[in-house]
């Protein structure tokens, strides 16, 4: 007999869901980096090592920036991941993000509020803006059974053109000779965290708190219970008398609100030059942060806490990618790496099994069979 106790311990660790999605993500990251390095070697063998080092550790020197850029993709990651737990693919995070940004800007420029509340109201307005653009695909899905992917893609364009148009015709917000928005009044800027050389603001702290709140909603409340039940098996949810339609709309509204907050956090951050803030250029481009949110969500396994880490990580290597241009690489090299990482994290299940095999094979033949059971969904009992 193999020692029962040892086997059990190993099993209970490798069996936990968190562990397996974590190992899968690590594996995907590792393969993505290896692949990126190979591409760099092919492109320019001479500076590949230096460039690769920038990608991997470059972000460490700009921690503030890493967190600043992590804030919006953390929020859009939550927007995609939260809806995904209910089985909805919210591909409209970009449109919701843009709307949130616009609503925040509008309150920032057009409303005159006392300093201490101005930015708070603007943030809330941003959330409302995103919620509206989550609500519309949600109601189409719930009442007319229109696929949310299609509506939310269309609303990416509607949001982007609508916002660009609204900004361009508003002289209080827009500087036409510079094709960008004005600097926000200081009362409407997010309080800076004061990290030298970066734009990081309280946005990241709020974002992390919101992620934790979402985690609590998903895991501890009846709404989360219903939401996940619907995501796993909508027929059983219906059979149990859950209000599927209401939940679809509510989920999309919350998801939209997340992306909207992302837009608000991104645009309301103070910039490094005193008194200035981030600006928006209405040049008919769909916000990339919305799509990055899909990547963040996938890498974080749609889990709010996982998304905190995946957003930080993706932001980190994006910063590194920018630095890689110092040795002659296009910053887009990092998009290749991220793409490969996402590609591999989509194979999470396969990765899980192969990693477990790798770990367990070292502990003898007995363990190997356990992997088999995991892999066989039918079970044996």
């Amino acid at each position, binding site marked *: 007999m193999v020692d029962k106790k040892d086997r059990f311990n190993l099993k209970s660790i490798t069996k936990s869901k968190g562990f397996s999605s974590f190992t899968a993500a690590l594996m995907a990251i590792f393969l993505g980096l290896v692949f990126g390095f190979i591409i760099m070697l092919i492109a320019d063998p001479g500076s590949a090592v230096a460039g690769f080092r920038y990608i991997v550790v470059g972000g460490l020197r700009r921690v503030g920036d890493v967190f600043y850029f992590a804030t919006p993709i953390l929020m859009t990651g939550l927007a995609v991941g939260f809806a995904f737990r209910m089985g909805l693919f919210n591909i409209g995070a970009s449109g919701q993000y843009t709307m949130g940004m616009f609503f925040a800007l509008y309150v920032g420029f057009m409303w005159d509020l006392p300093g201490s509340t101005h930015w708070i109201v603007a943030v809330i307005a941003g959330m409302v803006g995103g919620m509206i653009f989550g609500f519309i695909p949600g109601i189409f899905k719930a009442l007319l059974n229109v696929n949310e992917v299609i509506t939310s893609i269309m609303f990416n364009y509607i949001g982007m053109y609508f916002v660009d148009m609204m900004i361009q015709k508003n002289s209080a917000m827009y500087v036409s000779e510079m094709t960008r928005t004005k600097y926000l009044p200081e009362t409407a800027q997010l309080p800076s965290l004061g990290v030298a050389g970066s734009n990081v603001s309280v946005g990241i702290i709020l974002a992390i708190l919101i992620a934790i709140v979402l985690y609590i909603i998903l895991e501890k*409340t009846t709404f989360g*219970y219903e939401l996940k039940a619907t995501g*796993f098996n909508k027929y059983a949810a219906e059979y149990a008398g859950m209000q599927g339609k209401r939940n679809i709309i509510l989920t999309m509204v919350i998801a939209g609100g997340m992306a909207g907050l992302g837009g608000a956090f991104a645009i309301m951050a103070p910039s490094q030059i005193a008194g200035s803030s981030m600006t928006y250029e209405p040049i008919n481009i769909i916000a990339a942060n919305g799509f990055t949110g899909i990547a963040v969500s996938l890498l974080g396994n749609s889990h709010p806490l996982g998304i905190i880490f995946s957003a930080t990580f993706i932001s980190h290597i994006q910063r590194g990618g920018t630095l890689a241009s110092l040795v002659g690489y296009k910053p887009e090299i990092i998009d290749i790496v991220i793409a490969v990482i996402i590609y591999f994290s989509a194979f999470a299940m396969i990765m899980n099994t192969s990693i477990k095999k790798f770990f367990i094979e070292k502990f003898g033949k007995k363990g190997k069979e356990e992997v088999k059971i995991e892999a066989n*969904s039918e*079970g044996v009992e």
Partner: protein
Amino acid sequence: MEEVKVENYIIEMLNITKEFPGIKANDDITLRLKKGEIHALLGENGAGKSTLMSVLFGLYQAEKGKIRKDGKEVKINNPNDANALGIGMVHQHFKLVEIFTVLENIILGVEPNNMGFLKKEEARKKVVDLSEKYGLRVNPDALIEDISVGMQQRVEILKMLYRDNDILIFDEPTAVLTPQEIKELLQIMKDMAEEGKSILFITHKLNEIMEVADRCTVLRKGKGIGTVNVGESSKEELSKMMVGRDISFTVDKEISKPEDVVLSIKNMTVPSKLHSNNAVKNVSFDVRAGEIVCLAGIDGNGQTEFVHGLTGLEKVSSGEITLCGKDITKASIRQRSVVGMSHIPEDRHKYGLVLDYTLEQNMVLQRYWQPKFQNKGFIKFDEVRKYATDLIDKFDVRSGRGPLTIARSMSGGNQQKAIIAREIDKEHELLVAVQPTRGLDVGAIEYIHKQLVKRRDAGKAVLLISLELDEVMNVSDRILVIYEGEIVGELDPKVTDLQELGLYMSGAKRDTEKERENG
């Protein structure tokens, strides 16, 4: 070990032991399959039948024991090895590509080709020949998603025959079939055995074994209990071997004492999703407290739509449903549940359980919103755990990790027990049980029937929807026969017989409205 003439057996599985963590699925089991015989493998859910067959088919490797084919020891590491040895398997859940045609599915993996170009005509000829030879009626060009379950099974059988397998494993093939289809399948199996194919038939339906099998090996809790010649055995003996105690095939119950009307259905009509006709036409009847009313009929005569209309999964187009004096015709599913309806659904995987949830999460699926289990929207996890543990004990639901077991990993019988526990323990006046024993073994069936009778004796109304004639006759106090969406007769199980019931079910006999009213 006894001396045997090796050449008699086409497959021998000797002293097979297969362990999973915490459970010995197969413990020193020996099974010998003769050429050209139908060999039944009988056992309760979880007795290790499927594991043993998975070992033979190369899905699992045994820790101990060996497998011999034609007397020579063989190693089967994966299904491809099994295939090369001529071993084919029809799984309980079919492995077909829904959007491919029958022919494409059959040749999948062994496509006849010329430098990569498909030679479909050749394949079609072989398939058509095979289907004629064995009476396996299929349309090679139909899409899998469009054909019935029985037809899909024939495709699975053709897949094995197409690969020239001569050892055929059937894993509970009749669980998903209608009585008519079962009859046809058993005939096909007999024909194949006559052609020299050797068949391993996993089942827990004793009638089928008595009808077709030559020999039967019985497993119980992972151990081999013995192999008997079916001709020299009886249903009673086999069931005793399987369960380890005597099983009564009749349900012990007193004469019912119906009281007040609990459920009253008037002129209910439900549209069909498949065709423009109504699936349920103008159905009216009452169910009283303290009686079990059985809606009997051949599959596909509107039972599913009727249940969906009754339970609120679908809207009825006309009619009136009254439960405990309240009109629930337009009520939501949750409202019906609150008024007093419990529902054991037909499809436990699709409706009854969230398979990726744990057992405890599934146990509160109907009640998580009640103040007992939540406070201001926050789930009381302690209460849920306590309640689930109670139910698991009370209803003897067996699983690997108790309340924390993922429902998907439980056996079908225990999944069903969990659903029954949940629905019975919930406050209710009416229990709607739709094919509650489908795919279960005699032990579990006996248990479920007892539970239904217990509900009745507790003064609840029970509406049973069943396709199994034995169940209809044994359990119910009153039988209503549904045919093409209409109630065509009301029978008393004490005076009627299977013959008469069959005539009603097949539409050969029907009462007029008047006759029904006069009883």
